[in-house]
C-alpha cells in the first residue's frame, strides 16, 4: 500500500523550453475576450460584410439567374482583385477593426500596468519581446479572422463555384496579395494598439485614444483635402494610408494620386516609433515601482 505524502509535493515533470514561450498569453487573451458577451456580437457583426461578399461571389457565378436584378449592369459583380481590395479596405471593415481594438486591445497592457502584474510575467522565462508578441498575437488573431480568413475563403469559394482554375490563372498572385495585405494591416494595428495600451493604466482613456487618433487623422485629411484638393494630404490619414498600401498590394491604381510607398513609409515609421515607446514603457514598469 502506498500512502500519499503529506505536505508539499514536487512536480515530477520536466520544464521545457517552449518554441513559442508567449503562446499561453495569446490563448488566454483570446479566451478572455470571448468571455465578454458583447464582444461576440462585435465579431459577428464584423463578419457580416464577409458573408455579403461571399454571396456576391456566388451571384457572380450565377449572374444570369440574377440578371433581372441588375438590368444588364454586369460591372458591379465582377470578381477581380478590386473586389478583394474593396472588402479588405472598406471603411466599415476598418471601423469594426478599430472597435475590436478598442474592446479587446485597449486593456492588453494597460490592465497589467494597473494591476502590477507585469512582474508576474517577467518572473517567468519570458522576454519582453515574448510578452509583447503574446499580447500582440491576441490582436493578430482577431484581425486575421476578419482579413486573411475571409480573403482566402473568397478565393477558395470562387474556385469552387467556378469549377475550374481560370480565376487563379488570371491572377496567380492574388493569394499572396491577400496574405501580404492582411499581415500588413494586422501588423500596423498591433503596434498601434499596444502603443496606446502601454501609455496609461486607465483603460477608458486608452480606448478613447485608440479611437480618437484613428478618427481624427481621417477627419484631418478630409479637411485639408477638401480645402486644397491636394491628394498628398491623404498621407495624414491612417485609414487612407492603409487603403493606399492596399491598392498597391492588389495592383490597383491608388485612390489618391500619391505614391503608395509614402504611405507605407509613414505607417512603418509609426510602427517603429511605437515599438521604441513600447520598449521603454514596458521596461519602465518592470524595474521601478
Amino acid at each position, binding site marked *: 500500500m502506498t500512502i500519499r505524502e503529506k505536505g508539499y509535493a514536487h512536480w515530477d515533470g520536466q520544464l521545457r523550453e517552449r518554441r513559442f514561450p508567449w503562446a499561453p498569453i495569446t490563448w488566454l487573451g483570446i479566451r478572455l475576450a470571448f468571455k465578454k458577451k458583447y464582444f461576440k456580437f462585435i465579431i459577428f457583426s464584423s463578419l457580416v460584410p464577409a458573408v455579403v461578399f461571399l454571396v456576391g461571389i456566388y451571384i457572380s457565378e450565377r449572374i444570369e439567374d440574377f440578371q433581372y436584378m441588375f438590368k444588364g449592369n454586369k460591372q458591379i459583380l465582377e470578381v477581380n482583385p478590386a473586389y478583394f481590395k474593396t472588402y479588405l479596405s472598406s471603411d466599415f471593415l476598418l471601423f469594426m477593426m478599430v*472597435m475590436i481594438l478598442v474592446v479587446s486591445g485597449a486593456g492588453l497592457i494597460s490592465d497589467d500596468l494597473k494591476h502590477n502584474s507585469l512582474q508576474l510575467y517577467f518572473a517567468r522565462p519570458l522576454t519582453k519581446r515574448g510578452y509583447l508578441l503574446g499580447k500582440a498575437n491576441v490582436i493578430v488573431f482577431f484581425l486575421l479572422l476578419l482579413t486573411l480568413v475571409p480573403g482566402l475563403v473568397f478565393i477558395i469559394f470562387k474556385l469552387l463555384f467556378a469549377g475550374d482554375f481560370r480565376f487563379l490563372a488570371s491572377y496567380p498572385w492574388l493569394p499572396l496579395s491577400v496574405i501580404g495585405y492582411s499581415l500588413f494591416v494586422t501588423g500596423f494595428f498591433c503596434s498601434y494598439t499596444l502603443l496606446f495600451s502601454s501609455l496609461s493604466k486607465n483603460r*477608458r*482613456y486608452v*480606448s478613447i485614444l485608440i*479611437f480618437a487618433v484613428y478618427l481624427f487623422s481621417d477627419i*484631418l485629411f*478630409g479637411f485639408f483635402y*477638401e480645402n486644397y484638393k491636394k491628394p498628398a494630404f491623404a498621407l495624414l490619414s491612417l485609414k487612407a494610408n492603409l487603403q493606399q498600401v492596399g491598392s498597391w498590394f492588389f495592383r490597383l491604381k491608388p485612390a489618391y494620386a500619391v505614391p503608395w510607398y509614402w504611405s507605407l513609409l509613414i505607417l512603418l515609421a509609426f510602427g517603429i516609433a511605437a515599438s521604441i515607446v513600447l520598449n521603454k514603457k514596458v521596461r519602465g514598469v518592470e524595474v521601478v515601482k
Partner: protein
Amino acid sequence: MTSIPPTDFRSFLSSVGRVFAVFFRQGRKARRTRFFFLFSFLPVAVSLVIKFNQVFSGKPGREGGYLFTNLIMLFYLQMIILILALFYGTSVCSEELEGKTLAYLITRPIPKAAIVLGKYAAYMAVMTGMVILGLIFSFFVLNVDRLLDPSLYGLLGRYLGVLILGLMAYGAFFTFLGSSLKRSIFFGLLFSFGWENVIQYFPGSTQRLAIAHYLKSFLPATSSGRFSFLTFRLEPTKPGLALLMLFAIAAAFLALACLFFSKKEYSLED
C-alpha cells in the same frame, strides 16, 4: 434622486457648488486635461496652417468664414465635443469606481445627486473652457483680415452656443452611461460614431432620435454633398423646439444618472 423640498433647495444647490469647486480644480490640474486641451486645440493648429499657407502662397484661397463654418465648426461638432464629452461624462461616475475613491464622496453631508450634478458641472466647465478657447482662436486666425465685420460675431456666438449645448447634452448622456454601465466607453463610442451618424441618413422623423440632429438644426444649411463625412439630408427642427429638446435630453439623462448613482450599489472590485 428624490424630490427635493423647496426649503432644502438652497442647501442642495450649495452642495452642488461645493462639489463643483472641488472637481473643477481637480479637473483642471489632472494630467489628462493637458492631453485633451491639446486635442481640442488641434483645429487651431489646422487654422494656422491654412492661414499661413494663404499668406505665403499668395493665393486668396477660400474665404475664412466659409472655412470656419464648414470645417472647423464641424471638426468640433462631430469629433471633439463627442470625444471630450465621452471621456469626461463617463468619468463622473466611473473614475470614482476605478480609483476606489467613491467612499470619500458618499460619506459627506452631500446628497448623492449633488455629487453627480456637481461633477458634471465641473467637467462641463473644463470642457467648455477648452472648446470655447479653441473655437475662438480658430475664429480669429481664420478671420484675421475682417475682424470688424459685426455679423461675424453673431455667427461666432451662435456656434459657441451650439457647441456648449452639444457638450451639455452629450455630457449628460455619457454621464448616465457611466453611472449605469461598466462598459460605458464602448457603448458610448457605438452611440456617438455609430448610431448618431447612421441615423442621420434615415428619412423622416427617425433622425430626431440623434442629439446631433438638434445641434445641426441651429447651423446654417451646409452645401451638402461636398464632404464625405458630413453628407446627410437634414430636415431641421425649429430652433426653439431644438433648444427645448436639448435641454430636455440633458435634464432627463442627468436625472437618470442621479437616480442610478443614488440607488445603485457599486461593487469596488476591479
